[in-house]
């Protein structure tokens, strides 16, 4: 993006906060020691890592800092959590998850089902993206080793009732893991008093760098590491610590806690302003997911009769970065699994466009986006055979479909 670009793709990744970077830089130069070393070079770094661990603990409201295990990111945390539980409870052969999870969970579950003989229950959602609670309760049973359900959806921002789900899982004797990559920093958490056993988070979604994340593991939970080697992270994640990344995540966690109110007031208001303006100015579009229960920064609007990649290319030309659930943007040929799971009609699923804000988003930026979007949609619709000049969908019956 250009320097003047408007970045509304913060659910994909965020800019590293300059304060975070400032905390990290000494770790590359003066404080380069290996925290496992006995000398002063190592000790200085070790202290910083423990400081960072306490910041993440505070953000999650965890009871103990030793419950935080630093990893390389969300995917590693998700994989570690699921594989650890399956290894710790070898007799249980079922996994419960949802159809709208991130591929970091879904692809692993597919693999476990195909190659390792696990039974995977994928709980569906309604057309607002809310989890089917009856199906969820029915899937729980003595054979379920782990439940892995995301806290908030990356595409629509829809929030799942995690505490309720965790308590139900606990009652059924299953370990409860949540992929909270999108939720951490935007939703206040008190894991100390929660039934959640494990939680994944990713640094680069909250203004820390890419390549750092964490897994929360409740004290007392049986744990089997995925990476074996040295004694780092209390032998739960071997490998010399990514010290700059860890310190960056610590600093980012501290800032996220400070800005939590801002996210839920000012950022939320900007998101609502953007959304209402688009809905008012553009015919034949609607919000996907549950508008009443979602992340404060996320807005996903499906524009009917046009295709998402084309929208993104024109937005990009106007200096605006957004994201799409369209098939064409990913190289896959089907629209996003989240849109399909919610039963969003194909007429709109291909045009689903996500705007995700951050605490760095300004009102001027939102005003510029509001000014540009209706024209872009109109331009593409004027090219679309499904859209007549009159501004309403028209009959179009192609030869093959």
């Amino acid at each position, binding site marked *: 993006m250009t320097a003047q670009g408007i970045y509304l793709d913060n659910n994909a990744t965020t800019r590293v906060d300059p304060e975070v970077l400032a905390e990290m830089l000494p770790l590359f130069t003066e404080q380069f020691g290996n925290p496992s070393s006995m000398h002063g070079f190592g000790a200085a770094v070790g202290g910083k890592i423990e400081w960072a661990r306490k910041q993440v603990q505070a953000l999650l409201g965890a009871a103990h800092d030793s419950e935080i295990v630093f990893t390389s990111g969300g995917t590693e945390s998700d994989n570690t959590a699921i594989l650890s539980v399956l290894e710790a409870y070898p007799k249980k052969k079922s996994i419960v998850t949802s159809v709208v999870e991130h591929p970091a969970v879904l692809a692993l579950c597919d693999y476990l089902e195909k190659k390792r003989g696990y039974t995977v229950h994928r709980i569906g959602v309604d057309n607002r993206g809310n989890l089917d609670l009856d199906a969820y309760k029915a899937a729980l049973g003595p054979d379920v080793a782990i439940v892995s359900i995301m806290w908030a959806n990356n595409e629509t921002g829809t929030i799942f009732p995690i505490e309720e789900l965790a308590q139900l899982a606990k009652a059924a004797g299953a370990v409860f893991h949540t992929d909270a990559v999108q939720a951490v920093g935007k939703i206040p958490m008190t894991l100390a008093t929660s039934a959640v056993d494990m939680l994944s988070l990713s640094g680069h979604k909250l203004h820390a760098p890419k390549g750092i994340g964490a897994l929360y593991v409740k004290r007392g939970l049986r744990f089997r590491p995925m990476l074996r080697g040295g004694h780092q992270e209390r032998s739960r994640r071997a490998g010399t610590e990514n010290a700059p990344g860890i310190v960056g995540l610590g600093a980012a966690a501290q800032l996220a806690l400070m800005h939590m109110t801002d996210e839920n007031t000012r950022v939320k208001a900007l998101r609502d302003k953007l959304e209402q303006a688009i809905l008012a100015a553009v015919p034949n579009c609607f919000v996907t997911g549950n508008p009443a229960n979602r992340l404060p920064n996320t807005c996903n609007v499906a524009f009917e*009769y046009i295709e998402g990649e084309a929208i993104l*290319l024109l937005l990009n030309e106007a200096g605006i970065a957004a994201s799409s659930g369209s*098939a064409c943007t990913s190289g896959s040929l089907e629209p996003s699994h989240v849109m399909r799971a919610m039963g969003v009609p*194909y007429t709109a699923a291909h045009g689903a466009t996500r705007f995700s804000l951050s605490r760095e988003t300004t009102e001027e930026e939102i005003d510029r986006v509001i000014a540009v979007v209706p024209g872009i949609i109109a331009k593409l619709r004027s090219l679309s*055979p499904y859209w007549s000049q009159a501004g309403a969908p028209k009959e179009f019956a192609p*030869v*093959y479909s």
Partner: protein
Amino acid sequence: MWNYTDKVKEHFFNPKNAGALDEANAVGEVGSITCGDALKLMMKVNPDSQVIEDAKFQTFGCGSAIASSSALTEMIIGKTVDEALAVTNRDIAEYLGGLPPEKMHCSVMGAEALRAAIANFKGEEWVDDHEEGELVCKCFGIDAAMIERAVTVNSLTTLEEVTHYTKAGGSCQTCHEKIEEVLEAVLAKTGALAPPKAHAPGTVGLDAIKPLAPKAEATPAKLTNVQRMQKIMFAIEELRPQIQRDGGDVELVDIDGKDIYVRLTGACSGCSQSAGTMMGVQAKLVEALGEFVRVKPASLLPVGA
């Protein structure tokens, strides 16, 4: 972000001939909103001269779908119907300076719409023609005839390529076996490469990586044949020490236009890394010549050539 050529961007951001054509007497409609792309091609054909005097399009789809449609109209205006029939999806892609492999189906959609429009002009039932073939991919409604055409025109050899060019098999994947049957049948008929299971090391994947490279702008191949050959020989000589260090060797066997045949010997023959080595050779030659070439093992030299 897709790596679109400037030509694709030009035709996407400022599409030519977009909109409805009221006096059209030849209309072709292909694709559907479910598939994620659809194209309505409208042409005004002079009934006496058979010349396509005007053409317009309406497209629902991604950037490359809109660009392909725009390019198609530019290509066919002024042509006679019979001349236009010779336009293949490959021509459309070349006109645009190449498309990413995953987007080749956009050019196929253009070619299909053209055939449909011409059939419509001639009063033929294009639908029947199209449904001669068995419906192979139910998700995207792709039949055997369309796969055959894409395989023949573009010299496709793998399932993956067929998916990139036609979308067939890109969703539920249950039709992969059927696609392979069609592919094998076409390849057997044309006597082209054997299907992937019998592939020679280093061939599969090379085409898939770049079926059509954007044309190098600076050097429109002003080299004489001798200069070009010398450049190739020199580039291969430069590579040899590096390959020899691993106990192998590479030898230039023949040059046939864009196809350059080499033989890997020594430790290279049968080495699992040989495909990588071939790609390295290709990269080096593309760089040296400033044009796109394919590097193939000598074992693939056409017999008698």
